[in-house]
């Protein structure tokens, strides 16, 4: 310790100060000196303890430290969430980036098209409908998506539960961006939930396929097929492109039938492949 001070507080003076029986002036100079002198602070720590038993004082200090530590030992703010879905999703920067990217793509695409060619803003929003759930389910299965890497794979939440929670998070967020995009296109708000139907179906198929092969190989054809379908349909209904026709497209028997077939197929594969829910293609 440095010894730059000419004088130090004596043990007796410190004792009196700790016990609060020192003169005001003496107390004041002791306090001023303590601020500047590490040696006297250290002495005070021992003097202060002689009043109570050493163990008692140590226990009190440890208890006080434990209370400080309880407040210091907290995860960073985005990870402090008590909701598990939020927690595991916010913990994954790639997932957050992908979700934000998809939301931005949807908003920008629909926004730009609504200015350039308002007629097409509706089909574009429709074509991009499955993007968020599909991208989310794809990302959720990528090896690098989890902050704990392979450590995460042997935990109870690993397997299908963790990607499911993440896909759920991205789907809910895509609903929000879908509602926002509806401001540009003519899609009525009550259709936005319906609008998610193809995305949820595709996500189910991707989840099922992930137990057998790399889900990217399934997702790409699904998205391309859907885009072709929507483009073709829009061209044919160009004259009468209203909310009513979109509702008809999404709720007609054939569309719902395909969705049902897709989900049933997915469920069957998942049940059949339940024995080994670890994505095989990754090994």
């Amino acid at each position, binding site marked *: 310790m440095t010894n730059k001070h000419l004088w130090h507080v004596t043990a007796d003076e410190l004792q009196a100060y700790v016990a609060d029986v020192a003169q005001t002036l003496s107390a004041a100079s002791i306090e001023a000196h303590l601020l500047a002198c590490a040696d006297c602070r250290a002495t005070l720590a021992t003097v202060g303890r002689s009043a109570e038993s050493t163990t008692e004082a140590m226990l009190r200090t440890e208890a006080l430290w434990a209370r400080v*530590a*309880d407040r*210091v*030992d*907290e*995860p*960073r703010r985005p*990870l402090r969430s*008590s909701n*598990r879905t939020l*927690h*595991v999703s916010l*913990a994954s*920067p790639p997932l957050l980036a992908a979700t934000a990217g998809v939301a931005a793509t949807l908003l920008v695409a629909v926004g730009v098209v609504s200015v350039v060619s308002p007629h097409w803003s509706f089909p574009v929003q429709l074509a991009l409908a499955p993007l968020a759930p599909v991208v989310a389910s794809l990302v959720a299965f990528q*090896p*690098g998506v989890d*902050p*704990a*890497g*392979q*450590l*995460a*794979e*042997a*935990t*109870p*939440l*690993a*397997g299908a539960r*963790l990607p499911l929670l993440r896909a759920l998070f991205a789907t809910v967020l895509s609903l929000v961006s879908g509602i926002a995009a509806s401001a540009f296109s003519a899609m009525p708000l009550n259709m936005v939930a319906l609008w998610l139907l193809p995305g949820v179906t595709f996500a189910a198929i991707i989840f099922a396929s992930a137990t057998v092969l790399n889900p990217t190989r399934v997702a790409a054809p699904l998205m391309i097929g859907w885009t072709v379908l929507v483009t073709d349909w829009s061209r044919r209904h160009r004259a009468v492109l209203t909310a009513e026709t979109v509702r008809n497209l999404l709720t007609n028997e054939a569309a719902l039938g395909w969705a049902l077939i897709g989900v049933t197929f997915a469920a069957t594969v998942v049940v059949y492949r*339940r*024995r*080994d*829910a*670890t994505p095989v293609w990754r*090994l």
Partner: protein
Amino acid sequence: MDREFEFSGVSKRFGTSRALDNLTWEGSGQVVGVLGPNGAGKSTLLQLLGTVLVPDEGGVRIFGLDPTNFTQRLTIRRQLGYLPQTAGLYLGFSAFDLVDYVAVLKEINDRDLRRTEVRRVLIAVGLEADMHRRIRKLSGGMQRRVALAASILGRPRLLVLDEPSAGLDPEQRLRLESVVHLARTHGTVVMSTHHAEEVTALCQQVLVLDRGQVRFDGTPTALAATATGRVWLDDQADPRALRSRGSGNGEVRNIGSPPPGAQLVEPTIEDAYLLLTSEPGVPA
């Protein structure tokens, strides 16, 4: 039946190479060391125990449960700690955040409980002072200990450690030993290692793997005993020996079939391990 884990006729292939070949093995309630050269199938064996792989043939049972069954695997994973050979942690996370996140994956939902447990494991691996620093700023050995801390969350009934001592300095290895001793009080520990002396220090059972097959399964003492009469000292490496290595005091330990009149010495686990993996013999 109290076997904590059982392998019966397990085979696992990757492409054309056989990582494990018709392996039968069991163990419980102890610290089990898995020794073997690179490519012997150690990691595959531990991945099967860690429920992140399923066998091509044969069956694995952990706590008497079947890890290929969805619900039974969940039950196993709730009592399992697994440290992979390379974890791949996010470097931007603090050690505390990362272990806290793994605790969420391990279904420790109550926040106060989680904090207490996360702090406990980080202190156990010696990261009390550094737990809030970003993993990027920690040394390689410290990063390894972050992963170790995450694997011992919740005092697992079965702790699987894939080369836990890789990259640790001698002091950190001592810390690892204390962690393993602690884990042993509430469960079984299976660890793979390159260091025969760790087996001596920690393990009650040892498995020697070579080319996907069991070459030895028994106590460390019994392993050392397999080389009785096969180790002799000489001034230089004996060309007749299968393996020779310096013993530190200028003499050379030769392992193999000793010539008549050779100066035989007490074998160590390492001698026995070298002997086992260098002769193309039948499984012990």
